[in-house]
């Protein structure tokens, strides 16, 4: 079997404290990488250039949804069959990448690295408040799409060709992690959870997945409900400006 090309997408916004270690971990694991600089105001871009990392420099901040989608577009145009989203904040463990990639090779379209699949697995499992939010979202997704997603906010995920093509055409802007699962299921893609270990944030502050506020939960719930309840045909290209 010919080796499938794998790209690890590393979205980064103001991650000067840990970006170098994060990228080097991916390089050491033996994968192609692409840092997507999401309009960082700190030294993230400079550090990446200094170390000769492969960088896609978004000159504006688009948010995690826009940054990751840009990564998918790069993967698509450069012929990668599989891509892996790997957060630039040091929370994801490069040793878990092969597990995700293998599941895609088995034939699953979207593979999500879950902290909660296996109760025995250690690692950082977030605060109680956030876990409650995750449980709620997990249950909501299950009710709305009959799909099991034990860690719907996890940004540690691998996509096969069909998922990459779908996300290039449309990818949610506001709450991409849970919404994209619903979107994928609606388009007939297969989802699988794979157990991973995550670390606590190494430095800087999180801007991507604020789970603690009730307001955020209301918005995500509404977004998922709207998406799950709307009847759609094939993937619609995003409405042009």
């Amino acid at each position, binding site marked *: 079997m010919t080796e499938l090309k794998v790209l690890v997408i590393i979205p980064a916004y103001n991650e000067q404290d840990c970006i170098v270690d994060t990228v080097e971990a991916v390089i050491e694991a033996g994968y192609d990488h692409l840092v997507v600089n999401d309009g960082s105001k700190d030294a993230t871009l400079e550090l990446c250039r200094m170390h000769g990392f492969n960088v896609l420099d978004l000159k504006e901040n688009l948010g995690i949804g826009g940054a990751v989608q840009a990564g998918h577009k790069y993967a698509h145009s450069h012929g990668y069959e599989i891509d892996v989203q790997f957060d630039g904040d040091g929370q994801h463990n490069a040793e878990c990448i092969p597990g995700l990639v293998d599941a895609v090779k088995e034939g699953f379209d979207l593979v999500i690295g879950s902290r909660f699949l296996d109760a025995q697995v250690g690692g950082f499992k977030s605060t109680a408040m956030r876990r409650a939010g995750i449980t709620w979202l997990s249950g909501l997704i299950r009710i709305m799409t009959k799909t099991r997603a034990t860690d719907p906010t996890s940004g540690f995920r691998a996509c096969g060709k069909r998922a990459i093509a779908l996300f290039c055409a449309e990818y949610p802007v506001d709450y991409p992690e849970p919404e994209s699962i619903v979107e994928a299921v609606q388009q007939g893609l297969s989802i699988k959870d794979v157990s991973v270990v995550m670390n606590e944030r190494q430095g800087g502050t999180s801007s991507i997945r604020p789970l603690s506020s009730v307001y955020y939960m209301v*918005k995500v719930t509404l977004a998922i409900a709207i998406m799950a309840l709307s009847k759609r045909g094939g993937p619609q290209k995003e409405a042009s400006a």
Partner: protein
Amino acid sequence: MSVLQVIVIITCLLFVIFALKQVSSKKLLLRYSLLWLGLAAAVILVSLFPQPVFFIAGLLGFGVSSNFIFFVALFFLLAITLSLTVIVSKQSLRLKRAVQNLALLEKRFEELDVSGDKECEKKK
């Protein structure tokens, strides 16, 4: 329940359904729809329980309760419109920067192409 209350509630519900349809067909981002959903929810609430509003209107010195409601509605719409113009301004600036970056990028390509041709010429 009066006829007017029923009409108002039905109209609000239709408005909400329309807004949600716009969101589901990707013509309206959820984050901007929340304003309208909030407004519709407030109107439904007031039409179900108008007494507190009549009371507050009297307290504040409005001769006619409906003047108070119009006042609040106008203020709310003003706030929404103001925030929209702020958003439009931000988009405008981002678009300007994107167009400029694109132009500069294309220029770099052109210049690389030209210097590439020059290199080929030298080697011949």
